[in-house]
């Protein structure tokens, strides 16, 4: 099969990130370079503390790199000042915890990004209602976050990141707190959404099976200092189902990636 090399949508080149605390400097990322194509479902997998989350926080401009360049759609980030609201509105971020604001209702939490980004078209508000419906939260729209279950809260966290129709969705172990059955179901739901919307997704997880189930390509990371050690394409095509899990190829991928992650030095995990 011949593949034409498309221009990458997101590029990180020689990115370093150090966190300086009172007593010491931690190298979260060391010389990380990566590329993500438009519409790709990229997964970054690795043990705790390997810098996975740092990468998407850099792309979403929550933090700035110590050195190196970040480019999205041909636009290079300025490492000294925040990128514009217009540009940042092209991205969505799902946190490890639902990260809902307890003083806002379910619907207010969902609409918050639109408010912050000054988006008030009828189309977006209708889309918000569609998303609520899709994740079965329509009946809870007026409830406060402490009145809904953990799974509902997490689903709300996911659709909130999508409400402004971002081109890039970054997800930081979004289902880590859920039980395995719910998580698989959410993974499949996410794949459906991805197929429908063609969003570029960067998905962070430490779960190898989850990585192989959803990813079209997987970056494997190691810690101390955080770096990318492998780039593994997952050739399951776009039409994925839970049944992929029971194929021989699936376990081959899992074994390969587990081996790449290697032995985890527990003493270095904080």
């Amino acid at each position, binding site marked *: 099969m011949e593949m034409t090399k498309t221009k990458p949508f997101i590029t990180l080149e020689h990115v370093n990130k150090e966190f300086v605390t009172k007593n010491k400097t931690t190298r979260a990322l060391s010389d990380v370079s990566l590329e993500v194509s438009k519409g790709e479902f990229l997964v970054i997998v690795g043990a705790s503390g390997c810098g996975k989350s740092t990468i998407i926080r850099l792309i*979403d401009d929550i933090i700035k790199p110590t050195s190196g360049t970040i480019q999205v759609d041909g636009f290079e980030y300025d490492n000294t000042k925040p990128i514009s609201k217009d540009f940042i509105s092209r991205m969505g971020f799902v*946190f490890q915890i639902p990260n809902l604001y*307890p*003083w806002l209702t379910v619907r207010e939490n969902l609409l918050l*990004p639109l408010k*912050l980004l000054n988006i008030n078209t009828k189309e977006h508000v209708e889309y918000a209602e569609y998303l609520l419906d899709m994740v079965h939260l329509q009946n809870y729209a007026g409830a406060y976050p402490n009145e809904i279950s953990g799974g509902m809260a997490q689903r709300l966290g996911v659709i909130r990141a999508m409400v402004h129709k971002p081109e890039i969705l970054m997800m930081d172990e979004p289902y880590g707190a859920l039980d395995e059955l719910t998580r698989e179901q959410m993974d499949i739901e996410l794949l459906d959404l991805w197929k429908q919307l063609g969003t570029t997704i960067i998905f962070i997880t430490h779960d190898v099976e989850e990585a192989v189930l959803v990813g079209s390509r997987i970056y494997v990371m190691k810690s101390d200092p955080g770096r990318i050690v492998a780039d593994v394409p997952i050739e399951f095509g776009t039409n994925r189902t839970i049944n992929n899990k029971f194929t021989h190829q699936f376990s081959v991928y899992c074994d390969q990636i587990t081996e790449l992650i290697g032995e985890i030095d527990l003493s270095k995990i904080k």
Partner: protein
Amino acid sequence: MIIILLLWEISTIAFHVDSKVLPSFTDILSAFQNKFIPIILPDLLITMKNLVLGYVIAVPLGILIAAICAQSQTLVKIATPLIIMTLVTPVIIIVPILIPFIGFDAKIKVLVVILQTAPIIILNSLVGFTNVKQEKLDLMKSYGASRFEIFRKITFMDALPRVFAGLELGCILSTIGAVSGDIAVGDGGIGTRIQMAASTLATDTVFASILSTCLLAIILFQVVVWIERNVIAWK
């Protein structure tokens, strides 16, 4: 509570305690009943005016100072010991220093209330403003929200329960402040009444006045609790 009051009542009668030393509880109640409207209430109203005025100024002032301090970690480090210093210094001993500047004016009593109340509001608000979970702030950053927007929409809202804890403690401290102001400055008010009654051994009036002051503090406290319940509706 009832047992204590009963013991008080019985022991004052049983041991023939002089009512100038310790009046029985029923003596206090009858003093309260007889003297509340003609004697205690006018003084209580003077104190209440200073108290409420001082409190109403101290609340926004305290929150504002906390909000400014919260903007920098260095400021927090500098401010915290200063706040604790003002908290432990009885404001009443500062009054003689202030009198040459302000004079024996009602203003000085309001100032005493502010000085007594603001630090606890600052301290509590500051703890609230500086303990917001990083993810909550990151989410706002991920939508390019400005620093002011983040403070107004997230930090402030997240800290509200803590701020209200400060406002409730502030109720109690402002009552102490108002009464100390009366005592230090003289010139009317429930504190002056207590002092005068004590010097003439009208112990029942002393106790009845203290009781009235306590009731005032409890009512103010409940008002703030009621406001809190309505403002923090999500809990």
